[in-house]
């Protein structure tokens, strides 16, 4: 079995064309099966960082792949390996309407496996299994517009799980969810064995689910460590526009 970290960032820096630096000096090593939360104020660079993990944003070309700044399971994220990278890293986007584009839920979940060249029967099996995993076995023939926001979020997750990724990246998975949908989502995520990387403002979800936190602000890592320790530090939280979660506040 490979002992390589699930993810490795080596001094990652990034700026959108014509824009300021969004990420700089980002370095971190994430072992397999870690549940990592990326927190920080809006505009800190969380979503941009996540997109790098799936090779969705162009990196500065390097002559030697060893100089690459993003590594997945010990392999560099370079153009020639994007197919493998996207098979390994599943990405759940913040807005479900960005992700659900097929005419039926079934077709949408089957999209990923189809792109990966998975045989028809196996694709059908995965669709059924993933719909059951997210608790929506009857949504198969429905149009995405017929589903509630929370249900659409869960279908997005099913669509990514159908690719059986070893690393799952989620951008604001609990945003705009009511408490029940949020609880359902947390239960599903807790049951997964994949390495999780979650960008979120929902610090209670971080405490419920994650075993490590990266605090990002102004495009740099400001803190990295145990969720309870970091999130209960009022000075640190205040300095970066965050609040200590209610349950960690002294009574």
């Amino acid at each position, binding site marked *: 079995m490979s002992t390589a970290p699930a993810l490795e960032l080596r001094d990652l820096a990034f700026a959108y064309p014509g824009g300021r630096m969004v990420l700089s000096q980002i370095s971190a090593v994430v072992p397999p099966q870690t549940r990592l939360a990326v927190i920080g104020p809006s505009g800190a660079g969380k979503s941009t960082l996540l*997109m790098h993990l*799936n090779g*969705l944003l162009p990196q500065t070309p390097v002559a030697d792949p060893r100089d690459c700044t993003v590594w997945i399971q010990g392999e560099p994220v370079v153009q020639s390996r994007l*197919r493998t990278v*996207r*098979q390994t890293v*599943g*990405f759940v*986007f913040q*807005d479900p*309407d*960005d*992700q*659900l*584009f*097929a*005419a*039926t839920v079934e*077709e949408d979940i*089957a*999209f*990923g*496996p*189809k*792109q*990966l*060249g*998975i*045989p*028809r029967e196996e*694709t059908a099996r995965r669709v059924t299994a993933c719909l059951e995993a997210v608790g929506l076995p009857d949504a198969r*023939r429905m*149009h*995405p*517009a*017929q589903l509630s926001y929370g249900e659409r979020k869960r279908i997005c997750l099913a*669509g*990514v799980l159908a*690719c059986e990724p070893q690393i799952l990246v989620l951008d604001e998975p609990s945003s705009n969810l009511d408490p029940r949908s949020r609880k359902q989502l947390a239960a599903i995520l807790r049951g997964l064995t994949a390495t999780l990387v979650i960008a979120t403002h929902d610090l209670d979800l971080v405490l419920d689910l994650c075993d490590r936190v990266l605090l990002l602000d102004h495009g740099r890592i400001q803190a990295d460590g145990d969720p309870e320790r970091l999130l209960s530090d009022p000075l640190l939280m205040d300095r970066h526009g965050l609040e200590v979660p209610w349950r960690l506040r002294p009574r």
Partner: protein
Amino acid sequence: MPVERAATGDNLCRSWPAGIKLGLAVAVIVAAGLAPEELWPATASLGVFVVALHALAGTSPRLLLRRTLQFLPMVIAISFAAVISRPDADAALWSAALMLRCLVAFLAGLWLMQTLTAAEFLDVLSRWRVPAALTVILNFLLRYVALLWEEHERMLRAQRARAGGPSGRWDQWQAAGERLGLLLLRALDRAERVHRAMLARGWTGESRKPSP
């Protein structure tokens, strides 16, 4: 999406095979389009047939009338242009026949929208071996037209929420123009995000079918 709401309701035509419904609508549209103007009674009969189909589908007469009235100005404009372009004795008949054809085709299309869901429509097209590029484009259109419409409704509501929205006619036109411009920008932005989400799930630019 309104189309989906109508198509998923209970009516007699809902249980008919999707291929038959699409075939029937296409046959009516093609027949109406190809019928010579002298045969206008045949085209009118086709119109009666389509109205009967609407009755079977349970389309409300009010909806039928409203949609027809919305479509009519365009048909009249086309027919008027036809009269101008053919200053001969038959121009009036030609123009009336053209108007009739357009109406029959429109009503057939409306019936299809009332009885066929987007998923069924795309499924039939795939079974008929319509090129994948076309079905993919139609799929996107059907999926995102509803979303853009919702986006437009939200913008309209937000405009109205601010002191009742624009008051004068000119202001209303200006606000509508701003909404459309913003909608275009948002659509472009959305397209970029959808493309990114597709790339994340392995999209390489070509539509793949599952291997057997």
